[in-house]
Every structure is written in structure tokens, then in C-alpha cells.
């Protein structure tokens, strides 16, 4: 008997996640279960980005992925991926998040009503400027900055900018409207997808990123329980770390878009040591708050953070 799984995807049909991650994964699940589990992806999103978890627990779709930033109230531990300076490539950050989740977070069941299949983290978000590159805190002070809600907005606010924080999908209106002087928080691949990349004259990379967007990929628990143990095992072999590793496609895309922008004359700059120090000072309370949160949930926050950084950045310095 076939189990049909309807996966919702709130990003547009042509987004890399649909073409290069979800569809190939669906095909492999079909093969690995000898056709007993058939995964289809909704042709258009059936729920708002903020409603993915509800949509799955209520059965609108069987599975979905959701931005952790929109789950901050109930899912505190996985917010680790959004902390400043800890990430590297999308692939390595994704694997780090999944492994840290398995090792430290899974015991605190923060995802009620769903079975977590995997997690992934997009490439880190640099600081884009419409004018001169932003290479010190002074360059942001008194400026109007669009920042992704969450860590990026907190960092920019702490730096003294006038922050406009709206959902990433609405950032085009703010940025194209000329209402801000700079923007920060999402990777260049998203800046292109949201049509905001062409407004940037310069892009400053901070080692480890000031933040990165991470997502949980999950399936309705009841639906999951309907699947035989043998097929569950087959699906998990393709999910978890293996699914996280598929994030290499985002790194590839990120490189391609960056190369294109460089050709168009966009200036790419690496933050210098002084700017880095300033930013790290601003980031400290944000990191400390996460660790305290983790402790209160009975998780050794410092150990988890150390493990995550090891997995994401390893011995090699962060890109």
C-alpha cells in the first residue's frame, strides 16, 4: 500500500530548494521505499511562512520546512544557528545544526506534534551598502538599515542604526523604495531572489557571518507513525545529516551569484580585525542570552555552542 506525503514549500516553485533539494529527495525516498512512500510537493504554498508548523500539525500538508526565526517562542535551542560568527558554508552549518540537535537538543522536545526529518542553514548574511562600504560601527550609526528580524536586527540596533525590520519577502519594497541606506541579514542568493542585490554597491563579509537563517524540516507525527519502521529507517537515511548535506547546492548558488555581482562591479570586502572586534562586542549579549536560555532548558549551552562551532568551522578558519 502506498503512503502519499504532501510536502508544502512556502518558497516559490522555481527556488533552488524545490528544484535541487526537495524534488531529488522525494525521488530518492520513492526509490528507497520501493514506491511505498510517494512524496509530492504542493504546486503553490498552502500556508503563510509563519504558519508552516500549524499547517502540518493540522494536516493541511503532511510535511513542510519552517524558518526558525518564526518559531522563536517555542523553539529556543535551534536558534543557535542564527547566532553571530559561528557559521561557515551552508553545507557545514546545516550539518552542524543537525548534529548539535541530535546530540544536545532532541531530548528537549521542542517540536510538538511533528517528527523532525532534518535541519538546514542558508549561507550567512553579509552587510550590503548602497553607498560606501560599511567597514566600522561608525559607518552604521545614524544610518537607516533594513535588517532581517532577529539577530541581524538586534546587531544593527545595538550598533546604533535606525532599523527597519520586516519579513525578508517584503524587503524589496523597503530597499527599492530607497528608504534605507544599507541592509543586512540574508545571503546574496536571497538578495538576488528578492531582487535587492542590484541595489548594493558594496558587500562586507564578516567571518562566521553576523547571522544565518536556519530551518527545520518536519513531518506530521501521526502520518510518520503510519509508515512502517523499515520505511521510516529508509527515509531517515536520506534525511538528517544526508538532507543537511544537500545544502551544498546553496553554497554553489551563492558562489555563482557573487561572481555575477563582482562582474557587475559590486565591491566585496572582508571585515578587518577592528570592525570584527567591535561586532563581537555587540554580539556577546546575544550569545550569552542564548546560552542562558539553553541552561534553563537543561541543556549545557556552552558545550553545545562549542560543539556547533567545531562542526561548522572545524580547524579551518571560518570563511
Amino acid at each position, binding site marked *: 500500500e502506498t503512503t502519499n506525503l*504532501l510536502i508544502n514549500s512556502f518558497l516559490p516553485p522555481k527556488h533552488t530548494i524545490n528544484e535541487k533539494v526537495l524534488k531529488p529527495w522525494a525521488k530518492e525516498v520513492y526509490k528507497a521505499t520501493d514506491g511505498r512512500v510517494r512524496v509530492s510537493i*504542493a*504546486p*503553490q504554498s*498552502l*500556508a*503563510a511562512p*509563519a*504558519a508552516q508548523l*500549524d*499547517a502540518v500539525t*493540522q*494536516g*493541511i500538508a503532511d510535511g513542510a520546512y519552517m524558518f526558525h526565526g518564526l518559531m522563536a517562542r517555542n523553539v529556543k535551542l535551534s536558534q543557535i544557528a542564527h547566532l553571530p560568527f559561528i557559521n561557515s558554508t551552508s553545507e557545514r552549518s546545516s550539518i552542524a545544526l543537525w548534529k548539535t540537535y541530535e546530540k544536545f537538543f532532541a531530548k528537549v522536545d521542542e517540536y510538538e506534534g511533528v517528527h523532525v526529518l532534518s535541519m538546514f542553514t542558508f549561507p550567512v548574511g553579509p552587510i550590503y551598502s548602497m553607498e560606501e562600504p560599511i567597514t566600522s560601527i561608525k559607518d552604521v550609526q545614524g544610518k537607516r538599515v533594513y535588517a532581517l528580524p532577529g539577530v541581524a536586527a538586534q546587531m544593527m540596533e545595538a550598533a546604533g542604526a535606525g532599523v527597519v525590520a*520586516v519579513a525578508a519577502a*517584503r524587503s*524589496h*519594497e*523597503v530597499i*527599492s*523604495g*530607497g*528608504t534605507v541606506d544599507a541592509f543586512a541579514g540574508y545571503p546574496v542568493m536571497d538578495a538576488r531572489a528578492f*531582487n535587492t542585490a*542590484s*541595489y548594493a554597491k558594496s558587500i562586507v563579509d564578516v567571518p562566521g557571518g553576523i547571522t544565518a537563517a536556519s530551518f527545520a524540516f518536519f513531518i506530521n507525527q501521526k502520518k510518520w507513525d503510519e509508515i512502517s519502521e523499515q520505511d521510516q529507517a529508509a527515509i531517515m537515511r536520506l534525511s538528517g545529516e544526508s538532507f543537511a548535506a544537500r545544502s551544498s547546492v546553496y553554497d554553489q548558488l551563492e558562489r555563482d551569484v557573487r561572481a555575477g555581482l563582482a562582474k557587475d562591479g559590486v565591491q566585496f570586502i572582508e571585515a578587518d580585525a577592528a570592525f570584527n572586534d567591535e561586532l563581537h562586542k555587540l554580539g556577546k549579549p546575544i550569545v550569552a542570552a542564548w546560552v542562558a536560555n539553553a541552561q534553563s532548558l537543561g541543556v549545557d549551552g556552552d558545550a553545545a555552542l562549542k560543539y556547533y562551532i567545531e562542526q561548522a568551522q572545524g580547524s579551518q578558519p571560518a570563511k
Partner: protein
Amino acid sequence: MTLALIGFVAVLVLAFIGVPLAFSMILIGTAGFAVLRGLDPAMTMLAQQVVDVSSNYGLSVLPMFILMGLFIFKADISEELYDAANAWLGHLKGGLAHATVLACGLFGAISGSSIAASATMSKVAIPPMRRSGYHDAISTGSIASGGVLAAVIPPSVPLIVYGLLTETDIKKLFLGTLFPGLILVLLFMLAIVITIGLRPKLGPQGQLRSMRERLRKTSKLWSVVVLLILVMGGMYGGLFTVTESAGIGAMGALAIGVARRRLAVKDIINCMMEATKITTMIFVILFGALTFANFINLSGMTFELVMLIEDLGLSRVGVLIAIALIYLVMGCVMESMGLLILTAPIFLAVVQNLGVDPIWFGIFVVMMIEIGMLTPPVGMNVFTVKAINPDIPLTTIFAGTVPFLAACIVIIGLIIAWPDLVMAPTTWVR
């Protein structure tokens, strides 16, 4: 596909009996979704859609542009608009009709509703045309049709609704109307030239005005021009977002109305009340349309339609002509906003596979539903003119719109043949 078709028929049956279109779509969309995914999921889907759509920041652009139109409507500037247009064009054959079209276009640059444009111009333009011996067909026809310009020239309420519904950039949609809007004004004038050429008695010439008088009458429009520059210039010059432009525009229109002593506190409150009601009316159909679209999506109809088109070997042009015909027929009986919201997301999903751009399609659809405002038996622009001039028979007004309908068909043909007429300006901004 079968289930989706049953759904469509069910919505139309309920609607044709007289159940509000919004409720028809909500009920059938939810029921269809329940058939596909179960009752509980359908119930949650409905709740989520409603809350998500109603609490959407981007949608605030709609009441603000509506409010701007209402304030300007109450500010009674239509007379000045008409006088200025008349000073420039009145001396031509059928000059008052030309002036009407031009004034409709100018009014349309501040108001997004074709009904508002028809209503306001009816009051101003019909009395002088009657005095000058114009046939009722040409005067009322030019006003009902001129209303179409308000929906094509930005700001445009149907275009905003299309943009919100299909997540298409409203700024670019507005830019896409640049050439179609201008060409349509010229085609309307050509329609007048031809009609009067064939039957000169329908519309006599007015007197030639001096350049001084023209400039004097035009200069009276300064406040409107400033408002236009502020709203459109601010939007495209990168000062404001679209949403902000709408808010600033409403504020500016309010200021103009107050300065002209046409807006007392009571009127302001009435305008806001009216704007809220119109907003609610549109949003409730949006609830229905999105619920219904979720059902249609899941049913796989879009996919099957695409396959069908491929099997039939229909070209882009063939499909577009077929869609235009569907709109022409449905536009006869359906109110425009309902028609737009019911069909646009579904047709767009189909034509996007043929390489049709969502911006182009938005302008195409808005043109098509506006044609429906002129066609019998249900033509809202015609009804509006009739309501203000009860003594003129409906058939006269419908007959008067025929030359302008022809112009609308021509513009549809032009943008199908040269999509760049729409698309070129959209490449001028990022």
C-alpha cells in the same frame, strides 16, 4: 480536473442565484479542500488564510489608495480638470467628447476606480455636452468608457488587487501601464474622430480658446499636479515604498480637500467609513479567492490544463486569445472585481508556463475585466452613468460605448502582438 470543474460550476451556480461571490468561494473552496485533504485540515486552512490575508502589511496599500481617490472625489476638482481639458481640445470636432476622455485620464491619474471616474465625470461633462447639442450616445458613451482609463492609468485598484493576489510587484505593474494607458487615450480619441467623421451631427465643434486662457485654466490644477509628482515621483524616485506613497497620497488628497473647503470633519469620517467598507468588500472576496485557489491548486487542475494546452499544441497567442474570449463572455455578466479575483491566479499559473510575464498578464487581465464594465447586460460603468442620468435609456449608453469597446479590443491586440509595449518601461527600474 473533474473535481475542480465541479467546484467552478458550484461557485458560479451559488453566485448566479445571488449568494455573495465571497461566501460562495469560501464555502466551495473549503468543501473542495475537505474532499482532497479531510475536514479538519480544510477548517484550519480557512482560518489560517483569513487571518493571514487580513493582517498583511502590504495590503494596506489598498485602503490608502482608495482613500486618496475618495478624498479627491469629494474635493470636487473634476470641474477644473474638465475646464482645462476643454480649453485645449474643445475646438476640435467633437471637442467636448475629447475633453471628457482627457479629463477622465487626468482624474484616473489620482483615482484608481473606474466607477468613481464615470460618476464624477457624469456630473461635470454631461450638462455642457447637452447644451452644445451632443447626442446622448456620444456624451454618455465617452464618460462610461473614459472611466476605464482610471483603472488602467495608475493608481489602479484592480491592478493593486491583482498584484496582491499574485504577489507581483505593484510598482512594476504601474509602470507597465505607461504605454497601454497613453495609447488607449489616443485610441479613444481616434474612436471619437471616426464616430464624428461618420456622423458629424453627433458632436459639434466648440470655440477655439486663447493660449492664455488655456494656461490659466491649466494652472488651476497645480495642487493636483503637486500631489501626483509627490506620489508617483516619490515612488519611482526612491523616496517612498509603494505602501508609503499610498499613505502620503491619501494625506495629500486630504490636505487638498481641506484647503478647498470641501472636506469638513464629518466628510473625512464618511470617506474613511466608505474606504473601510470597500476594503472589507474586496478582502472578503480575497478570503474566498485564496481559499478557492488552494483547493484548485491541490486538485492538480493547473497542471492538467498545462498538459492539455501542450497536447492541443496551442501557441501563446492562441491561449491568450482563448482567455480573452472567456473574459469577454464572463465579463458580460460578472462584476469586474469578482471576475478578476476568481480567475486571475488560475489563468496566471497556466500562462506562466508559456512564458507569459506576470506583469504583462496583470495589465492584460485588468484591460479585459474593464471591458466587462462596458458590456451588457451587467456593465457597471454604464450603470453608474445611468444612475446619475436616469432620463437617458440604458441602450443609448451601451450603444455609445461601442466605438470605445473597439478601441479596447485594439489595445488588447496590440499588447498581445507586442508584449514590449507593456514590458519595456518595467526594465527602466530595478
